[in-house]
């Protein structure tokens, strides 16, 4: 579980300044913002637009296009279960239902207590050791009900 910084405009400006010189700086800035705050706050959009000489609409368009960028904070833990074909061939669908049951939430949801978010991901490149998952950035392969139980336990810590 990553501890994120609270929103701060000064910090956001620092991040932007550190990346502004790059060719095509928008994506690197958005990634860095999300890494710092855990999501891309709406307040950062005008700031990026101003710094890069873009319109707000352009920056907003980029934020909303990519699946990775969150506009709201996720749960304290994030479990991503691979939903792509190779993982399906090894029973990912059934495991997903199991995880949903164990966590009491459905794919795409965050638990009411903000403890955990469950999301699909489309391939982690671990397709020869399917099914696979990522929990708080850590990779897990050869998933079964037992490993799902372990992941669920991890979110309780």
């Amino acid at each position, binding site marked *: 579980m990553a501890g994120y910084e609270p929103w701060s405009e000064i910090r956001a400006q620092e991040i932007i300044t550190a990346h502004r010189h790059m060719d095509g700086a928008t994506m690197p800035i958005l990634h860095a913002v999300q890494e710092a705050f855990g999501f891309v706050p709406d307040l950062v959009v005008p700031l990026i637009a101003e710094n890069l000489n873009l319109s707000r609409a352009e920056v907003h368009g980029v934020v909303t296009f*990519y699946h990775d960028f969150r506009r709201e904070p996720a749960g304290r833990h994030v479990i991503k279960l691979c939903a792509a074909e190779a993982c399906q061939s*090894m029973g990912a669908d059934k495991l997903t239902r199991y995880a949903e049951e164990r966590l009491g939430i459905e794919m795409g949801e965050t638990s009411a207590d903000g403890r955990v978010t469950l999301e699909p991901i489309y391939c982690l490149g671990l*397709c*020869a050791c399917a099914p696979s998952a990522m929990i708080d950035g850590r990779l*897990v*392969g050869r998933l079964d009900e037992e490993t799902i139980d372990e992941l669920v336990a991890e979110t309780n810590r």
Partner: protein
Amino acid sequence: MSTRLYVPNDATAIACGADRVARKLNDALAARGQSMDIVRNGSRGLFWLEPLVEIDTPAGRVGYGPVKPSDVDSLVEAGLFEGKTDHPLCVGLVEEIPYLKKQTRLTFARCGIIDPLSLIEYKNLGGYRGLAKAIEIGPSATVEQVFESGLRGRGGAGFPTGIKWRTVAAAPADQRYIVCNADEGDSGTFADRLIMEADPFCLIEGMTIAGLAVGATKGFVYCRSEYPLSLEVMNKAIEIARANGLLGKNVLGSQYDFDMEMRMGAGAYVCGEETALLDSLEGKRGVVRAKPPLPAHKGLFGQPTVINNLISLATVPVILDKGGAFYRDFGMGRSRGTMPIQIAGNVKYGGIFETAFGISLGELVNDIGGGTASGRPVRAVQAGGPLGAYLPVHQFDTPFDYEAFAAKDALIGHGGIVVFDDTVDMAHMARFAMEFCSHESCGKCTPCRIGSTRGVETLDKIIAGTKRDANLAILTDLCQTMKLGSLCALGGFTPYPVLSALTHFPEDFGATPKLPVAAE
């Protein structure tokens, strides 16, 4: 030099416990007062064996796998540190494992053997000989070697790399770019990832040669965000290359300059499409551009750009080192050289199998892959990722070759094959293909954006048994519209998995099965 023990630093190995295995081995060594170097090599690509622990012995490297952290104690007891071969997890001499021995490793020659971040080991196994050759023969002869090799783009479309490079070299410009497509979004593929994590200098060398060949001084690698470890290893390798005069001004002491940097995608499959990727690199939404202009004429920031798949670029060093003719002599028909075939899904021996084109699909699935992991009969294989067709067992005689696959409305794509056993529901897989397309569509064309959503709805009706015949007709018609009216292969090829599932497995769609096709 103390004995070396190898534990892969590879995403698959780590996902299966390699870091904990390395720690336990370290503890066991300390407890015994023994000292050995634990090298974090890359993976050999024999993923069913990961984590594969290896140790140097006078006879060669002996391997043990798949090693779980809980196996370490018994392995040490059984003499792992002495390279003893009694433990049931011992696989003997790694180089003698048939899966590895049967391969022709040209692009992946060093993977798993070396410490990925050791320049010395890279050079000892042929590294930077390709670049030295390119410097010696100069830009246009370098392009001609690549042309002569017959190398076709490994990202999916199979376009001759040499022709692409010629076009960029001939386009007038002050600034040209090399862009490496490492978006590798296809399920069942991990070849790009393996190179980045096991042999990063190979990609750096390949891009540097490309830069020299076409007169580009700057390169970008667009790597998907699902590959954090690849990004980390590549970034370190780039630093090392810079510090050693292999990137920057006057690379390898020549008159050529080249530098490169990593960029991270953000979870959009469509950004693997080359023009969407370029827009994304420029900081925009990853929307597909209409062609022309070709990226070779107007690519990144409007400048002439070579955009190649990672494997295309990582194959260039060996082509320059050994010569275009050497590479061209492998393969069949117009598919020259080798392909890293990625065997994945419900398969016993999943991993990378680099081999000359021409091997049959059945050999790959049954002989090399060992059939299903579940032990049940194989029912279908999806080749070429989410836009590739499902092939039934009676098509397993198809040779791995661009044209042979195309003749069956199938595609090699990036070389992934995903195996399914007889529990698969093909109507469900067809629905998934449509759903994936609607999830990932860049939104530019209606047949793709709206058609895929309608496709999901129509398949739901078929699956529910509602007006089946009428809805099957609608689905077929819709697929036709998507094929003809889509700007890129996301909308244009999604019909292939859908229609192949329908054609070969009509019983899963509630239709009466066709008469069984002549036995295989």
